[in-house]
């Protein structure tokens, strides 16, 4: 049984120290990178493809269909709303019709209001408030598969040139991605659930995997400080991988449970 390395009464010490460490590394790394050259950020094909997908729709004279998932308020919804804001701005600038099917979950009503507000703001900022059509952001249903049926219906009727499916979509993602493929739309999806990532990767033209979706807002912003946070994300990943590998070696080769004790602190 792992034993905590130390204990401070009234405080889950390890969690607190972990939090302090996480914040310290983030703040120091971002400050450091602000002074230096822009950090190298690897290209993320799925995010780069967003602009091309909208361009394709514009050229074909077809609408762009974007959805932000059916999940609860979480990081994936927030990241999806950032992407929605980006796409709606391009659509407003290029006079491309944007359709955003909303709903799908019992908590999706509030998210819908946020999404409507975000898209309307982008049209106003583009100087084309009259082009914003709330009817193109229909609330389909609070039930997952009623929403799916409505979504698929829109795909079949409207024949969008591109479908950008972000946020947290569950099993209905396959129905949507495959129908999008059937109607000849370029499909960009994001895998939030580990269990449907493989299936979505098969069904989509591009997929945002793992931490790519939360990073999308920063990646698209091209802002120096936000790009630095993506770099910090990579530093954390290297730290996590190092911890796992060193912990495994310590435990299996030297029989030391130090890392287990550290993590249980």
């Amino acid at each position, binding site marked *: 049984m792992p034993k905590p390395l130390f204990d401070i009464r009234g*405080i889950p010490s390890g969690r607190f120290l972990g939090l302090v460490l996480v914040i310290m590394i983030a703040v120091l790394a971002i400050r450091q990178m602000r002074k230096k050259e822009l950090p190298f950020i690897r290209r993320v094909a799925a995010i780069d493809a967003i602009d091309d997908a909208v361009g394709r729709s514009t050229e074909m004279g077809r609408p762009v269909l974007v959805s932000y998932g059916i999940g609860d308020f979480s990081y994936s919804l927030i990241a999806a709303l950032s992407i929605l804001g980006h796409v709606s701005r391009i659509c407003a600038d290029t006079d491309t019709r944007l359709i955003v099917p909303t709903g799908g979950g019992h908590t999706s009503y509030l998210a819908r209001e946020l999404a409507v507000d975000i898209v309307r703001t982008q049209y106003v900022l583009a100087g084309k408030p009259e082009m914003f059509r*709330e009817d193109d952001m229909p609330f389909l249903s609070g039930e997952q598969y009623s929403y799916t049926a409505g979504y698929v219906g829109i795909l079949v009727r409207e024949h969008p040139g591109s479908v950008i499916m972000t946020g947290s979509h569950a099993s209905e993602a396959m129905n949507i991605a495959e129908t999008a493929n059937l109607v000849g739309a370029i499909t960009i999806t994001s895998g939030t659930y580990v269990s449907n990532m493989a299936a979505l990767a098969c069904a989509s033209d591009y997929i945002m995997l793992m931490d790519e979706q939360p990073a999308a807002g920063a990646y698209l912003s091209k802002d120096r400080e936000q790009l630095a*946070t993506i770099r910090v994300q990579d530093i954390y990943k290297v730290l996590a991988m190092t911890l796992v590998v060193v912990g495994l070696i310590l435990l299996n080769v030297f029989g030391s449970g130090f890392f287990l004790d550290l993590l249980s602190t």
Partner: protein
Amino acid sequence: MSWLFKSKQVNLAVLVFFFLVGFVPYFFLMPQVDDAVNKLSLIAATTGQFTVAIAIYSQWRRSLRFIKEKRKGWAYHIYLLALMSGMTFIGFAWGKSHAAYIWLTSAIVTPLSSVAYGILAFYMFSALARAFRARSLKAAFLIVSGCIVLLYQAPLTGAYFPGIESYAVFLTDNFGMSLSRMFSIAIIIGGIILNIRMLTGRELAFLGFAREES
């Protein structure tokens, strides 16, 4: 007064305050704050449910436009509006435990949802058919391991392919498990960094602030 709600600083301050109220009790034992957080969550959830009315209004408006302009599939919208109104009326008048409400749910909503869910299998197959083309070494590995795991999951596999279980379990417990943990770690790290960006006011799109405004 509207400047108050439009101000990025005010919105950010509210966000940080409620973040701290919800977050600090995770690290320090503060039962009073815990109670307050639970009540706040309940208030937020209840307030959020009022947006259902806006959602219903949005659906009504869209469906009426479909019917009025006789757009493709307009007749389905009559069906939709009739059922929606029926369920809303019965739900409000007699509650969700009334026989009519239960019938609507169990005889219409649930079977239709199940059909939509069942169709998923066909979509899975059509996607896999496109993906399972061994055009590279990686794709070939995918096909072989996919077939082994699929055969293991199928009924009567033990009778026809007795030795396959150990290979499938090896693939699932080693490659599958390690990949799923790697995905989880990366997703959590991405989420943490996104939260840091939000709390430092770098990413506020979800509050309705566009880049130009900030």
